[in-house]
């Protein structure tokens, strides 16, 4: 079984292991694009919270590529995808009684979102 060499332990604990990775395909979205979080209920691991599914948001920025937690959690490989910061208005998430000034920014991998209609 491969194991972390003793000499590397301190660096790993101190810095954490970055999941940043190169993605071969260009980013599908850019800042300002309107997107919808997919309405899915996977039984596997996902970093997409339930309360944004089916909700519309706006791309704020592109973070770059990162290993995909949904596959890595199951030993299925890194499969890196682009990650974006997406802004969701509180009123979109919680309804008309929510504050018009509040919003949530959530980092989402590209497979979690699709263009808004």
């Amino acid at each position, binding site marked *: 079984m*491969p194991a*972390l060499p003793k000499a590397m*332990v301190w660096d790993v604990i101190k810095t954490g292991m970055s999941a940043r990775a190169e993605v071969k395909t260009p980013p599908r979205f850019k800042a300002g694009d309107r997107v919808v979080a997919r309405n899915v*209920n996977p039984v596997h*691991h996902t970093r997409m919270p339930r*309360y944004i599914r089916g909700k519309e948001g706006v791309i704020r920025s592109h973070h770059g590529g990162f290993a995909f937690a949904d596959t*890595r*959690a199951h030993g299925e490989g890194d499969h890196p995808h682009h990650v974006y910061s997406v802004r969701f208005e509180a009123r979109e998430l*919680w309804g008309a009684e929510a504050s018009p000034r509040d919003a949530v920014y959530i980092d989402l991998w590209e497979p979690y979102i699709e263009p808004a209609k």
Partner: protein
Amino acid sequence: MNSIHDLGGMHGFGPVLREKDEPVFHADWERRTFSVVNLAMGAAQIHVDEIRHAIEKMPPAEYLVSPYYEHWIYGMEALLMAKGLVTREELDRRIAEIAKREAK
């Protein structure tokens, strides 16, 4: 996975309490858990995403009444057992040994 870990938007948990001068660890067992789990992840080549998923699979009632670092222990035990590195019997035996020693 739609499990109890995904608490966003739920009511009834009260406010988030901010602790003044919050220490990194609140007890020595938390400090040891941090070290042991990180080193076990390195030794067994376990990704953080794997342990997060193992924690999501905790029984929901147990999840809500146990502290943060107990979730780490639960997740690591579940993964080590799933990977065949430790058996339930070995864990139970060791826990019983320590309990006996500490009871003295």
